[in-house]
């Protein structure tokens, strides 16, 4: 059986290109240009999907890209809306959320139980006894949900695109096209988007038989195509409108992020359902859906239909369908006065019976609800209440509903527009629009195509004026003429309760009554309790009726009842398009390739990749210890290029550093280093590093790898606040830094530099500028690892050269590279803390035994006043070193294991090493001060019920007299 009509003017299908496809395993044929819904309907398939809760059969309802009951899976893709899924050759689709098949869904039994499952039923049961809830929840989870995801599905990332324009116009219908031409002819750069594959909007389905409208449409399209500055993008959804007119556009391939100087929304309206018994049966659809089927896809919506109407559109629809050989058996007009316009007269002339003041009371079906056989119409009394006893039976296989419209206003709401209910049109219309935002056409309450064209021009001119174009003749605002296009209350109760308000979520009229009875009497509460509007179509077909119902229940106006907040997105959009290609910054030092070649185990440290150690992954502990031993005994080389490297210059440089750091720098000699400790305003340890004075007004400062970026930023702020004459440059990326350490380091280095590096000429904590391996370098005598050592800072571009020269020269000394983990072990042996590792977000200097770094009697540094306060109160914890006593047969402590005193937490391990060059395990821990003196035993909890005993010892563990680094 086929419902395909003879070729229609302007149809979207290409009859030259037939396509074979399958739905639920059955083969069908359609055409290129069809969507799955139209192709199936053409093949006589009436059940396209099953509803969410009761698994009722559903067909085409809106055919406006939001039929949320006809969701299908195609291969790994799921939850695809069949009414906007383009037909492709050999497409294999099946309905989501069915047990069995869409035509015989075993879960349809849920419908029989629907009387036991009223709104919010799940809040009232299943929770006692508590142990049964997981079982019930599991069952509910299985029946809820729509499509099934394919865990193996992968997709190549799509690049996002950026764009900008003077005026974005959303919707290429009469208003949008007219606006585009008006703005385009004025020279504005216009982007005109429409989510459909063809432009024209209502021209392409509602006004197809109207010669004047068709001519206008063609003229407008010709102008749009002729003007180079109008960029028409069909198949493009404006999905969200954000701050400062930042708009997300989606097409099949990608997301485009568009900055528009002005946005004109001509998105139109969603036609709205009437609520009557079985109003969801396949074959019952919106009038606009029937016309879309006919004119876009040349498909007969039904052969014998009843129209439920409440506006002029219903009468135009009747004539339209009749012209296409469809038998319109009756119009039931909710309005007692009927339609007096020429459109009404024409229908009378066609001999179609018109029942004025009638509604459809219920639809009759057979074959378990899959086939519509007729409707029972009944008169409405003066209050608009149904009189079912006077009902009459009208046989039909289809119903077209034309009772009203709701604005497609999502973008306007998101952009900050405010709406007001206007009884002249019985719909919400924009009341105030933020600057740069404009609305035209049906969304603005203008319903005749000719007026929509004028309204489009009006809005385009207002936009041009907003954009500063001179000499523009404004067009006065239009208002709707004639009877309202929407009925104020197309909603009718029925004792059997299958009169659906929300098709996505299977919510019927009584659910609203019941929710209200329970006290859910605010539109947001109604939404949250009944879930109205929360389904895949986000209430496009239900929110307006829900508001009408609630307003009546509350005896309030529509305005006072209000709307729920509109949120992005306009239609559901894929995560993949939103994500696009992902960019994640990763920093590699200039020596990265060398490290890899040398077999380094690389690890992420903040944004950086750094060598942990060199050697096999399964020889971690041995490798680290061997590297450490080598540094202690001979010489090692580590890449410390990740260190923050800041240059501070200017007459006030020393003064500035004294305000930032806890120490003193005014009297620091040139060519000398000092330790620098910085706190934040609350006295918390923020940063540490060394501060080298290269000249009276020139300091070179190192900072931690992880914190230097934000530290630099803070320095710039303090500089501005202090108003000191100082310049700060972040040289972190420009310079590489290498640390040559070990007893033989001097002998290695002296081969490569002309600087006198003898102990007398270049002592510990000295700094020199010169060359190393022919490259300009800054040399610093530091002792982080506790050995004689030189930190060598060179331009990043020369790092490999210098590193290789050092390796080469060091070969006779057995020089070996070492990694960060080795450095951590060495510094632990030396008792040096690492900020952020041994300190936390609330550590202040006294706790970390850094009191020595705070200059006394300094008038001010950042955090000084807070430290004064903190230092007055008893210390709560102290960072100490410890060694382990009994480790045999017990789990070894790890960093962050707790230290207990009975049941009380008295501390925490911050650093630990099982193997050290000291031949015994060592660690650092925060402990309560009473446990901080050397010799105190520490009970370290290493497993439930198990403690290992440590003993506090004085720091450093290694070379307490600092002889090695001199």
């Amino acid at each position, binding site marked *: 059986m086929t419902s395909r009509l003879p070729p229609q003017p302007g149809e979207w299908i290409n009859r030259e290109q037939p396509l074979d496809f399958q739905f639920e395993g059955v083969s069908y044929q359609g055409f290129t240009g069809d969507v799955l819904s139209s192709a199936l309907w053409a093949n006589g398939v009436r059940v396209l999907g099953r509803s969410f809760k009761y698994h009722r059969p559903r067909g085409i309802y809106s055919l406006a890209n939001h039929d949320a009951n006809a969701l299908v899976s195609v291969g790994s893709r799921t939850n695809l809306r069949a009414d906007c899924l383009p037909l492709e050759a050999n497409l294999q689709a099946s309905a989501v959320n069915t047990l069995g098949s869409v035509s015989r869904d075993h879960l349809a039994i849920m419908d029989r139980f629907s009387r036991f499952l009223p709104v919010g039923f799940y809040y009232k049961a299943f929770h006692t006894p508590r142990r049964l809830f997981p079982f019930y929840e599991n069952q509910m989870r299985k029946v809820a949900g729509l499509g099934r995801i394919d865990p193996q599905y992968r997709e190549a990332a799509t690049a996002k695109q950026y764009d900008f324009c003077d005026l974005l116009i959303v919707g290429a219908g009469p208003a949008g096209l007219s606006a585009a031409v008006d703005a385009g002819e004025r020279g504005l750069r216009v982007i005109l988007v429409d989510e459909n594959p063809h432009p024209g909007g209502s021209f392409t389905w509602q006004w197809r038989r109207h010669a004047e409208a068709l001519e206008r449409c063609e003229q407008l399209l010709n102008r749009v195509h002729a003007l180079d500055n109008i960029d028409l993008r069909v198949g493009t959804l404006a999905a969200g409108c954000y701050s400062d007119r930042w708009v997300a556009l989606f097409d099949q391939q990608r997301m485009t992020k568009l900055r528009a100087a002005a946005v004109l929304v001509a998105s139109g309206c969603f036609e709205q359902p009437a609520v009557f018994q079985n109003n969801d049966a396949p074959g019952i659809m919106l009038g606009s859906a029937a016309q879309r089927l006919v004119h876009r896809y040349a498909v007969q919506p039904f052969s014998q239909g009843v129209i439920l109407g409440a506006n002029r559109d219903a009468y135009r629809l009747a004539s339209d369908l009749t012209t296409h050989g469809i038998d319109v058996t009756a119009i039931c007009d909710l309005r007692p006065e009927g339609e007096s316009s020429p459109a009404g007269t024409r229908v009378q002339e066609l001999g179609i019976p018109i029942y004025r003041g009638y509604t459809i009371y219920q639809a009759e079906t057979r074959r378990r609800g899959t086939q519509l056989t007729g409707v029972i119409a009944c008169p409405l009394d003066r209050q608009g209440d149904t009189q079912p006893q006077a009902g009459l039976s009208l046989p039909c296989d289809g119903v077209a509903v034309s009772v009203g419209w709701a604005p497609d206003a999502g973008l306007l709401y998101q952009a900050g527009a405010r709406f007001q209910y206007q009884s002249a049109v019985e719909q919400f219309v924009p009341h105030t629009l933020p600057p740069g935002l404009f609305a035209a056409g049906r969304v603005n309450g203008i319903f005749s195509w000719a007026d929509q064209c004028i309204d489009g021009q009006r809005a385009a001119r207002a936009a041009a004026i907003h954009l500063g174009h001179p000499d523009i003749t404004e067009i006065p605002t239009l208002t709707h003429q004639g009877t309202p296009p929407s009925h104020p209350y197309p909603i009718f109760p029925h004792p059997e309760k299958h009169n659906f308000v929300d098709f996505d979520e299977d919510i019927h009229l009584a659910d609203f009554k019941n929710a209200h009875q329970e006290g859910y009497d605010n539109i947001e509460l109604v939404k949250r309790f009944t879930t109205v509007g929360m389904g895949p179509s986000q209430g496009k077909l239900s929110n307006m009726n829900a508001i009408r119902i609630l307003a009546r229940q509350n005896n309030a106006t529509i305005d006072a009842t209000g709307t729920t907040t509109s949120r992005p997105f306009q239609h559901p959009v894929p995560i993949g398009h939103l994500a696009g290609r992902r960019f994640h910054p990763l920093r590699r030092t200039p020596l990265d390739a060398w490290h890899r070649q040398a077999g380094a185990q690389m690890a992420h440290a903040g944004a950086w990749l750094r060598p942990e150690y060199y050697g096999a992954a399964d020889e971690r502990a041995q490798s680290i210890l061997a590297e450490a031993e080598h540094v202690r005994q001979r010489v090692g080389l580590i890449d410390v290029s990740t260190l923050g490297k800041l240059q501070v210059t200017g007459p006030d440089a020393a003064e500035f550093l004294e305000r930032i750091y806890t120490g003193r720098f005014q009297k620091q000699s040139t060519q000398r280093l000092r330790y620098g400790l910085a706190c934040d305003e609350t006295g918390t340890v923020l940063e540490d590093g060394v501060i080298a004075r290269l000249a009276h007004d020139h300091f070179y400062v190192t900072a931690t790898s992880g914190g230097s970026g934000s530290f630099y930023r803070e320095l710039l702020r303090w500089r501005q606040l202090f108003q000191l004459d100082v310049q700060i440059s972040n040289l972190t990326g420009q310079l590489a830094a290498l640390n040559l350490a070990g007893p033989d380091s001097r002998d290695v280095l002296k081969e490569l530099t002309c600087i006198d590096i003898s102990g007398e000429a270049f002592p510990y904590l000295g700094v020199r500028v010169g060359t190393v391996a022919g490259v300009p370098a800054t040399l610093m005598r530091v002792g982080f690892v506790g050995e004689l050592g030189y930190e060598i800072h060179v331009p990043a571009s020369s790092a490999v050269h210098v590193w290789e020269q050092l390796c080469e020269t060091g070969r006779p000394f057995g020089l070996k590279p070492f990694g960060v983990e080795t450095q951590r072990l060495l510094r632990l042996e030396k008792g040096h803390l690492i900020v952020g590792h041994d300190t936390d977000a609330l550590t202040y200097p006294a706790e970390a035994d850094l009191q020595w770094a705070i200059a006394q009697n300094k008038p001010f540094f950042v955090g000084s006043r*807070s430290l004064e306060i903190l230092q007055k109160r008893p210390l709560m914890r102290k960072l100490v070193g410890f060694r382990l006593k009994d480790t045999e047969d017990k789990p070894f402590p790890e960093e962050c294991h707790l230290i207990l005193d009975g049941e009380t937490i008295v501390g925490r391990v911050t650093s630990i090493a099982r193997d050290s060059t000291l031949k015994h395990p060592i660690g650092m821990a925060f402990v309560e001060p009473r446990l901080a003196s050397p010799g105190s035993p520490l009970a370290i909890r290493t497993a439930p019920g198990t403690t290992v005993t440590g003993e506090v010892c004085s720091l450093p563990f290694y070379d307490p007299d600092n002889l090695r680094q001199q």
Partner: protein
Amino acid sequence: MKILTCPLNGPRPIQEFHYGGEFRPPLDPAQLNDADWGQEVHHRHGEPGVKREWWYHTASGTWFIAERDNLQDRVIQTYLYTPERGND
């Protein structure tokens, strides 16, 4: 994405900026007792209204002040800090 105007670089997308919190004029530590200082350091003016805030244009390293309505997300003006303009 919002647009913010850097006093040196003009209007730029907000992704290029870092928010630096409420602008607080420098205090004289000597003038405050311990509790007052504790409050000054931690407490903020978080209530709705037009606030003076620190913003940082990351690409150019520019700190500046923005007067912004934290209810409407509307920026009234932006300018570079000077003691005269900042501390009044």
